[in-house]
């Protein structure tokens, strides 16, 4: 899998998010030799492809998770002050509001897929060398 294939997958993301994901994947691609060296395994194209896809998945997931949980945590903090909603421009966030629900539904869909495909660990692990080892051992 090349960077251009990842860009292709991200084609219909809005520019700002597409750029964040592809830049991140590009940086992982650049670091690939060091990732394998730190993992103590020989560079392998198939494992590299898997790592790039995981990088794209991780980055997009973290963007969505961050958006949802930042709003959720903010609403939680504000509830202490008896404030039930936040208005950002024309968008209204409150528990049960359309904007809040849309973020939750999106995140749930990610979580369901990660659970079904047993990919949750790859999202949580910081180190790509460790991911490389796990992928190699799981062959």
């Amino acid at each position, binding site marked *: 899998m090349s960077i251009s294939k990842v860009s292709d997958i991200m084609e*219909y993301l809005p520019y700002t998010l597409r750029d964040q994901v592809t830049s991140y994947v590009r940086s992982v691609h650049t670091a690939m030799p060091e990732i394998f060296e730190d993992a103590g395994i020989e560079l392998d194209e198939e494992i590299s492809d898997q790592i790039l896809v*995981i990088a794209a998945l991780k980055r997009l997931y973290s963007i969505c998770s961050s958006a949802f949980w*930042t709003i959720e*945590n903010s609403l939680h*903090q504000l509830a202490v*002050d008896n*404030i039930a909603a936040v208005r950002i421009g024309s968008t209204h966030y409150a528990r049960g509001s359309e904007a809040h629900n849309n973020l939750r539904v999106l995140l749930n869909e990610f979580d369901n897929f990660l659970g079904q495909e047993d990919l949750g660990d790859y999202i949580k692990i910081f180190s790509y060398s460790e991911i490389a080892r796990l992928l190699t051992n799981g062959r």
Partner: protein
Amino acid sequence: MDVDKVSRFLRRIIAHHQAVFRHIGNQQTKILELAAFLGAKEHYQCSGYNTCIMNPSRNELVVKTSTRGHPSRYSYCEVCKNGKVFEIHMNLLVRSAHDEGIYCVDFAVTKKDAVPKEIRCKEKWLCLENKNLITFGETKKLVIYPMLLAQFLGIVHEIKPRFIGGKLPRNFLKDRHFFPALIALGHFSGNSEAIVQSYRIRKIKIAIVHNYDTRLAFIRGGENASPFEPNFFEHKFPDVN
């Protein structure tokens, strides 16, 4: 791992939720600024202050998202302890420390009543005078890389230069204010952590707040600590940089 299956999932979820992704793209920065504003409130709460969010109308927090708009139309936070009162404002125009320049900071801690609470027809409010600014913060939805640190240092130099090698304002530490803070969603990259570690020796008093969303998650989980604490992760996650 099935690369094709994951690729198909990503295509499908992007196609199915295009409007939501567009929304996230538009709102990402503003959501982070909101979280930083509330983090500042949390900081003062942890420091023993009573805090209160003041809203212009109804029971909702109205976030100021740009330089435009009179501050009285947006929410702010009042913090008080031992008779001392300060305010936290979002996207506030502030005067330079050196000249007539005006900068917009993502959130600012000010002296009480230094920011007008109503629009006065006869006079246009331009900005907060520098002497009324206690401290401030900037947010970035990026990893912390060396040039970002250099850019923030430049901002601090223009707005509050005494935090770079100078003497702290009277009662600054006693009143438990935070140093000018750079709030970032990402981790340290490159040698940026080494740069930050050198700030102490160089007498540069700024707070570099990395992995901010992770900090908020801990606080939501009941952690009673300021999200701007430099060693926030020390005892929880020693390997997180």
